[in-house]
């Protein structure tokens, strides 16, 4: 795996999103989005849409049941609800990314961390994941109806045999990174609000560093495509999507 401190030579854009903020951009097919959890305390909540048809979006259930997993890591692909691959996890040093934990709402933030409004705290005010999603989604004409089950990169949620959900605060370490290769043009909407199950008593979500770099065409022996037969079929559907260029 490449060193997250060394930007790939084909990097076209680099950015840093502080904790508790939002970001969105269309990642074009053939490019990869790298997320780096520099301080080991980031949670990157994410939703995905096709910019050509915003009705096509990341589907938690299809992603999980297609790959028989509730743990997303290298080799897994993030499926749309149209049987295609939006992003592939081509590198991952954290080992587990969540997609069942959801996001925080304003009341959760106030209950857990107290009220920190803009008037008093200026840009150190506390923001919820839902608030940040809705603001950024609105810029693309999207809203509450489009707020579906999201991803939470760098966070680990698992269920015991009795179904009780647990959060692992040690999942991500400083410098961990995950690389997401776009298999079709994908609108990525993300925010860095805390995970709803994060037990930290203070509101201090970590920043995430972003890099977008150009990647070569997917090879026949690609790790993600060959990770499961379902992935190969979803990728085949994605190839049809691109059959006219």
């Amino acid at each position: 795996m490449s060193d997250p401190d060394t930007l790939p030579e084909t990097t076209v854009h680099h950015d840093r999103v502080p904790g508790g903020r939002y970001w969105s951009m269309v990642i074009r097919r053939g490019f990869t989005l790298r997320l780096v959890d520099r301080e080991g305390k980031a949670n990157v909540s994410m939703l995905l849409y096709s910019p050509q048809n915003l009705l096509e979006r990341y589907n938690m259930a299809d992603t999980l049941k297609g790959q028989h997993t509730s743990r997303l890591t290298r080799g897994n692909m993030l499926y749309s609800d149209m049987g295609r691959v939006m992003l592939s996890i081509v590198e991952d040093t954290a080992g587990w990314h969540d997609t069942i934990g959801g996001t925080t709402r304003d009341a959760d933030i106030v209950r857990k961390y107290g009220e920190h409004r803009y008037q008093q705290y200026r840009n150190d005010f506390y923001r919820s994941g839902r608030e940040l999603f809705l603001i950024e989604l609105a810029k693309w004409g999207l809203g509450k109806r489009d707020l579906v089950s999201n991803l939470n990169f760098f966070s680990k949620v698992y269920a015991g045999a009795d179904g009780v959900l647990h959060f692992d605060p040690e999942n991500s370490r400083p410098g961990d990174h995950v690389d997401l290769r776009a298999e079709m043009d994908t609108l990525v909407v993300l925010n860095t609000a805390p995970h709803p199950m994060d037990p930290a008593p203070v509101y201090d979500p970590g920043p995430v560093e972003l890099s977008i770099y150009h990647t070569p065409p997917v090879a026949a022996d690609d790790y993600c495509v060959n990770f499961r037969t379902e992935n190969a079929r979803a990728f085949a559907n994605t190839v049809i999507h691109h059959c006219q260029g």
Partner: protein
Amino acid sequence: MTGINLVESPLDPANAVCREVVPAGEPWLKELRKGQTLRILDLEGNQAVDTLFYSLERPTVERYSAIDTLQAQGNVYLTTGTKLMSNEGNVMLTITADTCGRHDTLGGACAAESNQVRYGLEKKSMHSCRDSFLRALSESDYGLGKRDLASNINFFMNVPLTPEGGLTFEDGISDAGKYVEMRVEMDVLVLVSNCPQLNNPCNAYNPTPVEMLIWDPAKG
């Protein structure tokens, strides 16, 4: 909440104000009023009943949220006592009786396209829950469409998670005559697809009918 919670209902089907059988592969769309009780009865066993709820007052704004439901109870399985939460953080229904013991809300609904991915590219022409959902919504007058198909409930479906992150589709734990019952906490629209899936062992590859029973509050 610690998983399976078997509770029988005192309600008498003879007093139900609505009894409708939904054949396999068909949708069912119904308005439910606050205080009513809805029972879903697995007539022949191991059927999956894909279900969504919308606020009757604001169907395009407030709807069932799987993730809010899991967050609220801290448990991944639905059973007696589970509050079915909306995306606005409100309780839509509460499960008040359950003789099956476990229901899923992570497995989603089958669709022509996801059937291709899961079972084979040639499976696209097979009937699916999403087709039933879209047909019912498109024929209705609520202004709902594909945009409103969020993560659903699969009543009677057994989708265990392991601590290592495994997710499997196990043979059903339901049986003929088992049911799940819920009290309606706000006026809702319920949208059901009685799952037509022929490729999944959850229903022993044999989709079967279910019965929907509704009681008014005073007529228990």
